[in-house]
């Protein structure tokens, strides 16, 4: 069997198992959908008056403005939940048996990331339907909306690789808060409620350097039909994905060394 073929076979088996596990356990699937929905309702519904704030001139309205944040946040946290699955598999002993049996260890990492994308696809559909029902205005073309989806996919892959690397190193579900915290901090240190220009104090300084700001602004550009440096955002996303892939693969080597 060629290396590529065994990589794909292992990835498919791991992703299939993880997806079956997620879709047959509502307790695992629901938080990834419910939390973004709560944020969408709370932010877009409760803070819609921001639309009237002097200086706020997002053309598609506040619901669309917030939808992009929630959409990308769901991608990030959906990715982080993948690390929980890795940690659980190590705690139950399944991951060690898997490492003994799998001809391609990189395929294991790829499989977990594939499962993350599968769950995110489901979340994307639910969030989009709820967003449209809540009055989200999409002024971009279908292609631009797909651009937003592609940004979500990128964030999901980055977060999944990060958390898989973390899970492979810690091999304990008790590290779950430590996996979530950096992602949570990065997400909220971006222009969540108002555009970057309207942020004040330390948050403006931090958000100006936060790589997620460019991705968030590009996403908002896609939904409003006024693209805002999309290639820079995809470049940042690709760079982060490459870094996190290295982190995850080195995590796999460490897990192998631990036996």
């Amino acid at each position, binding site marked *: 069997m060629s290396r590529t073929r065994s990589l794909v076979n292992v990835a498919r088996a791991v992703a299939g198992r993880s997806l079956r596990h997620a879709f047959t356990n509502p*307790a695992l699937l629901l*938080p990834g959908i*419910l*939390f973004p929905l*709560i*944020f969408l*309702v*709370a932010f877009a*519904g*409760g*803070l*819609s*008056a*921001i*639309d*009237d*704030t*002097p*200086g*706020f001139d997002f053309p598609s309205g506040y619901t669309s403005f917030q939808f992009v944040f929630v959409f990308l946040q769901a991608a990030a946290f959906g990715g982080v939940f993948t690390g929980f699955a890795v940690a659980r598999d190590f705690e139950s002993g399944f991951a060690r048996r898997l490492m003994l049996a799998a001809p391609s260890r990189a395929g294991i990492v790829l499989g977990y990331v594939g499962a993350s994308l599968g769950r995110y696809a489901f979340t994307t559909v639910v969030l989009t339907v709820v967003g449209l029902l809540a009055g989200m205005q999409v002024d971009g073309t279908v292609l631009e909306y797909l651009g937003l989806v592609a940004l979500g996919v990128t964030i999901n892959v980055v977060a999944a690789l990060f958390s898989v690397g973390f899970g492979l190193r810690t091999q304990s579900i008790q590290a779950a*808060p430590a996996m979530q915290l950096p992602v949570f*901090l990065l997400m*909220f*240190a971006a*222009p*969540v*409620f*108002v555009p970057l220009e*309207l*942020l*004040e*104090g*330390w*948050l*403006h300084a931090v958000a100006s350097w936060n790589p997620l700001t460019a991705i968030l602004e590009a996403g908002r550009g896609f939904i409003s039909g006024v693209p805002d440096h999309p290639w820079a955002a995809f470049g940042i996303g690709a760079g982060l994905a490459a870094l996190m892939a290295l982190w995850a693969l080195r995590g796999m080597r460490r897990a192998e060394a631990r036996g």
Partner: protein
Amino acid sequence: MTGLLGQIGFVAGRSVRRTLRQPGILVPSLIFPLFLLAVNTPGLQQITRLPGFPTDNYIDFAVIGCVIQGALFATTTAGSELALDIESGFLSRLSLTPLRPAAILLGQLAGAVTVGMLSTVLFVTIGIVFGVQFDAGPGGVLVLLALALLVCTAFGAIGSLMALRTGSGEAVQAAFPLLFVLFFLSSINLPRPLIEADWFRTVATWNPISYMVEGLRSLIVTGWDGAALAKGFGVCVAVIALAFWAATASMRTRMARA
């Protein structure tokens, strides 16, 4: 064993010691609200430019969000501690002693309420350091602490009720997101008259958390607002009375079963 007060003191001492020995309970209830305050204050400062917004400094408005979040953590603290006692069989052993159900229930809340009040004092202090001014003056700080005590007790009582009904710490933890939804669906981020979405304003108007928030917040942004305070205290007393009534009934059933 002495009277009811002595019994409450006995259980409360154990509850406070046990809770304060767990940094895993203390740290998230302090860090998470402070992080949201640090992010929301510069992020939502622009909203104070809306006509009718009651203050021009968003931290005046936002600091109460921390107090309520601290109280929300009291729900899970109180519920989880009681659920642990149920799961470990400690409550069954207590039922063999002359302790009254009401004493156990009130005493068990002490740990959670202590953590809630410690976090309230910390949040208010940090708020004052960063420019929060009480329109009601120093007396307003004392009334805020009194109302916060009732808010923590109300949420703690809800946590105890959940624990007694389910007997499971996991179920109590799982209910936390539901309370978090209620927290967001209140007037926590904007005054109710400024909420534009009709359905959201209606939900916030029926949500008891809005009245707790508005009572506490009035002392900072309005001064002495009798109506807001009366509603805040009234809602807390009603929630405490209902939760205790239901929890005491559940406790009696559990102790009779044991």
